[in-house]
């Protein structure tokens, strides 16, 4: 059967199954209205204080075996340098959107430190890097998830995949408590490329024993930059 006739046959079967009528196109507005009518009585808004939410985010990431540190905005360069120093790695790549601002400060003082900015690096070049440095779009505390939408500061998908060590900079103002709060931040238009990362790569395929590090980065380091008021009070 030719492909176009398969298409018609499948759509005909679906129409017949749905009562024989046509399939009136569901417009974007209609679909959005339907979403509005859904019973969203699950937790949509977070309830924690700013500080508690940030702590939950860090705790959840640590449970996935990620390394998490906090720093003040003015300490970011030095903190990145300290992380790189401690990692023992020297060959890095970074997302193209302005990571220079962070890197120049202190990391270049480290002996042997190299960093290529991704302006179209080849796979081989990326594969040779020992680590990668990027920003992110959002952090979700409830599930300890980092969302990359692969803008210039978050980098192409491949750069956060091949290097074994991923250093991700999360600004405290990017952290939300619940997944629905993250989706609220994504509205109009929704992102075209997303990688949701919850810890380093892992598997439990052998006897359900969780092993950290398979094909994706085996190490995930996160720096949370305290760029907003941390005081008490709710959001």
């Amino acid at each position, binding site marked *: 059967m030719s492909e176009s006739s*398969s298409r018609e046959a*499948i759509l005909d079967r679906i129409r017949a199954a749905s009562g024989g009528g046509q399939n009136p196109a*569901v417009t974007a507005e209609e679909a959005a209205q339907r979403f509005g009518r859904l019973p969203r009585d699950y937790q949509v808004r977070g309830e924690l204080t700013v500080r508690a939410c940030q702590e939950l985010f860090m705790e959840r990431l640590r449970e996935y075996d990620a390394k998490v540190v906090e720093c003040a905005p003015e300490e970011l360069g030095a903190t990145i340098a300290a992380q790189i120093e401690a990692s023992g790695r020297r060959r890095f790549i970074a997302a193209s959107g302005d990571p220079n601002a962070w890197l120049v400060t202190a990391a270049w003082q480290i002996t042997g430190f190299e960093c290529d900015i991704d302006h179209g690096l080849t796979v081989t070049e990326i594969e040779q890097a020992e680590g990668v440095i990027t920003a992110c779009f959002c952090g979700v505390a409830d599930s300890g998830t980092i969302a990359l939408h692969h803008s210039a500061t978050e980098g192409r998908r491949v750069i956060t995949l091949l290097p074994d060590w991923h250093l991700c900079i999360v600004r405290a103002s990017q952290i939300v408590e619940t997944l629905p709060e993250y989706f609220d931040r994504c509205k109009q238009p929704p992102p075209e490329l997303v990688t949701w990362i919850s810890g380093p790569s892992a598997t439990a395929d052998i006897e*359900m024993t969780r*092993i950290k590090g398979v094909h994706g980065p085996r190490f995930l380091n996160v720096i949370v930059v305290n760029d907003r008021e941390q005081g008490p009070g709710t959001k």
Partner: protein
Amino acid sequence: MSAVVEHEVVAEREVMTEREVMDRPILDPALAPPFPVAALPLLRNLQLRKNVAHAIDVIQAKRARLVAEKPDWQALRSAASRIRDEALQDLGAYLEQFEARCTAAGGTVHWALDAADARKIILKILREEKADEVIKIKTMTSAEIQLNPFLEANGVRTYETDLAEIILQLGEGEPSHIVVPALHVNRGQVREIFARRMGIENLSDEPEALTAAARNYLRQKFLSVPTAISGANFLIAETGSVVVVESEGNGRMCLTLPRTMITLAGIEKVLPRFADLEVMLQLLARSATGERMNPYTSLWTGVTPGDGPQKFHVVLLDNGRSSILGRKTERQTLRCIRCAACMNTCPVYRQTGGHAYGSVYPGPIGAILTPQLEQMRHAQSLPFASSLCGACYEVCPVKINIPEVLLELRARVTDQERKQALRFFDPLYLGLRAANLIFSRAWLFHAAQRMGRIALRLFTREDGWIHALPGIGAKWTQTRDLRGLPDQTFHEWWEKNRDRGNKGPREKGRKRTSDRGNKGADGQ
């Protein structure tokens, strides 16, 4: 150890002994034996049962802990089942919307009526790409259409990249679970397979070492094979995006590095909107692996210049799904998001493991999905492979009432059997016909009771129990004892004793009972 070593797969296939051929489970529903027949050797395989029980206990405990910490779990389930129902209600419209958006974003959408259609489309794309090897992300849909043997027979080498799938591919095994396909294999068995097929001496059986071996084995493949095949967890109609949920990063490798990407997805995988993921992603990982979130979830839309594959094909597969859509009770089967929580909680699956189901979809969801995908022509024993305890319904994140569908399918199987002439030789059928006759006439029923009492007395031991029956009755007494019949039935006792009661509230009852007694007497 950062050096990348490519291990060549040891090419020559070990000649399988006859015993091993017999042991290889058959997961083609058209060829598989009925569930009880397939289950028997598995029940005798204590190692396998131990492996399955261990894996399931671990997942179950993790899932239970994480579900308990979500006070809004039931609200999430309700929302998810509503979203899935909405997608199925307007499936045609949402598929066309997905097709339009995906095409606009540079993807190519193909429609496959059945398994053969899908295999043909995929092979055609591979031929156009001049691909003689592909890397694959775990997809049960590909196993459903038996893609790998077809591609291999047509000169395309397939490399599974999910750890469990590598274990099965190299060990020539079959999946027994939809999330953890090799959960019936233990570390010692994995070590043996890897050592033999990857040619590694002195390989330890520590999961860390085995995982590292798989990483090294695949690294060059990821970097060099230009074509990949994936399944899909969700298709987003609103944006034309595809979502793949995974843990190891093998998925991201296949989605990012090759030149050409082919995604095979069942037509039911569509979600109306991007925002629907706020519900689905909260449910899926918790239900499937007992994690708050799986390590990696990827979403992509057609092709993105400079990032990832520059050619992207989606194959939308029907293969029996549209026939499920038209049935009111059964339609909910298509809500499934393949989390496997139902098989993890199922007391039957726990004992037999997945191979007894004779399908790549085992467990309770397989018991309802497989016969329907086969249009009730095969796998008719599966709806009966359940105790109807309802545990699967309770854990299902999209609230599929599996027991309800099981009963519906049992009725359809029974209707089929009723049409067969051979039924007159089936002792079960004859027995049920006889019972129908006896139960509909009171005098016959009483007579049968008296005869039964006399007959069973022959087999009743002094302890009041029947330990062994001859003929078809042995099917019961093989595994359980039967209480011997008492000397009189309740009816007989009541006939003798009903006048000994007092007045008061019993007055009414006495009257009604004596009416019934009279009717019985009339009948006699």
